[in-house]
């Protein structure tokens, strides 16, 4: 069953002339790991805001079509109700943490829901352990590094036990190493807890190996929607201006020289295995 569905979704911000997203039809199944990418201003962030009801409840504007999340139409349900099903993690970790200790921050959403205190403690401890920041529990968020802050942000939505986590460029403020470890943690949530992940990401090199689906947007529309091994083979990807992962580029170059690796590699490890395989079969 689809956990998230949009039907003919078109949205125009208040005071804007043109719609930011146009005619989006998207179905995401439970347990999927979806990457959304595309050039800046293509409507990725706007789409994320539609998923948890920030659009239209917080932003106003003109929404056409429907978004159905976990069986709830976002038009008819307030954000706080949708927040139990969809966790949204933003780009800048600094601006999504408000409390003075990590523990209080992770508890924030649960406190708002009015859960019993023991339950909050249990869930906060769980979320902190899953994201690997239990030791930072009593620290102040602003003392932490960007990567740690982003982990706190993820823990704080995780504590609400949503079925879907939407991450809007969670690594853009981070160095490559912390970006990699954050993405690994996100993948772990997807694989071990079965949480549906929708990840908006530019760093395809690091992210694409975890995804089972890549959506490429341009000018408010979905242009391509396919498995990561297929999607980059489309010539339009280059025209839109999406940076191909380096391993895919190498694969394409080799293919031009009539070296067929058999499938599109998604990580350097996979690429090297494929090359070794080809070399071996050449010898024999």
């Amino acid at each position, binding site marked *: 069953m689809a956990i998230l569905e949009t039907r003919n979704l078109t949205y125009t911000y208040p005071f804007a002339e043109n719609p930011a997203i146009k005619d989006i039809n998207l179905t995401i199944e439970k347990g999927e790991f979806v990457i959304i990418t595309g050039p800046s201003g293509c409507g990725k962030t706007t789409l994320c*805001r539609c998923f*948890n009801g*920030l659009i239209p*409840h*917080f932003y106003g504007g003109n929404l056409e079509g429907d978004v159905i999340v976990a069986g709830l139409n976002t038009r008819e349900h307030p*954000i*706080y*109700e949708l*927040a*139990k099903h969809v*966790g*949204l993690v*933003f780009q*800048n970790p*600094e*601006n*999504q*943490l*408000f*409390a*003075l*200790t990590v*523990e*209080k921050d992770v*508890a*924030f*959403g*649960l*406190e*708002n*829901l*009015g*859960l*019993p*205190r023991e339950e*909050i*403690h249990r869930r*906060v401890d769980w979320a902190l352990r899953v994201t690997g920041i239990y030791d930072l529990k009593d620290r*102040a*968020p*602003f003392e932490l590094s960007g990567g740690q802050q982003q982990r706190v942000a993820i823990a*704080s*939505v995780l504590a*609400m036990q949503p079925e879907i986590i939407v991450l809007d460029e969670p690594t853009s403020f981070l160095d490559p190493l912390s970006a990699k470890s954050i993405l690994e943690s996100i993948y772990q949530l997807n694989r071990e807890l079965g949480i549906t992940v929708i990840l908006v990401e530019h760093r395809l090199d690091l992210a694409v190996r975890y995804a089972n689906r890549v959506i490429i947007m341009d000018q408010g529309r979905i242009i391509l929607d396919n498995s990561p091994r297929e999607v980059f083979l489309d010539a339009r990807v280059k025209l839109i201006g999406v940076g191909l992962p380096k391993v895919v580029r190498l694969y394409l170059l080799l293919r031009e020289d009539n070296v067929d690796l058999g499938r599109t590699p998604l990580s350097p490890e996979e690429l090297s295995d494929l090359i070794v395989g080809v070399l071996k079969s050449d010898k024999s």
Partner: protein
Amino acid sequence: MSVFEGLRFRNISSPIHRIDPRAKFIYVCILFAIAVLFSQLIPLLILFFSQIPLVIMAKVKREWLRLMRGTMFFAALIFITNMISLYFYGGYPSLLSIIERSVAMTLRFIILVESFSIFFATTSPDMLSLSLEQMGVPYEFCFAFITAIRFVPVLAEEAQSIMDAQKARGLELERGNFIKRIRNYIPILIPLIVSAIRRSMELAEAMESRAWGASKKRTNLYTLKMGVKDYLFISISIIILVLSLYVCFFVYIPSLAELIRFG
């Protein structure tokens, strides 16, 4: 900034840190009242020095010393104003008594700052907001308070980087007369305000996404409970207040000048 350092919370553990903020607040209020009650030097001196054990117990000595140094300017200002006005209008018999009186007034100010410092340096803003909440202040206000404190270092850092950026583009802050200097800060204030507004939008988004306003009865992760030591602390404060009231109304307090003359 260094003056305010003395008012910033130190996250350390001490007997004073563990006292309930409400009890500490009552203590500070009583201290205020006593400081205003007396205008003679001797009781104010006693009051001033009686705070020092508390400062040592709370392990905030360094911050306290820095704050004391920071208040020197205002203290000197108060001392000089007092001296001048008392000399011309006070009708005091001797210069010594004028000095004594001025010192007392200055000390009164220092005691107020001192007690504030002890309160803020030993009370985490979280606890403070929690106690406000439990006294019935709406959560929205407490949240605003916490957020303000949370974002002070962030905004300070941002102001610094904007300042650096504008300086790199040739803005000279320390040039020109007073009016010019104030105008020099406009290129810093505008980006700062714009980014603060943008930041608040993002913050609001994040709050909404975490079920802000979901339930009328919001749970709090922690609750404050007054314990035996808190009640003891309040009782001691009240006893001190009663004693000072008694001394103030029924005991003659000699001035230091008199003591020197007769002693």
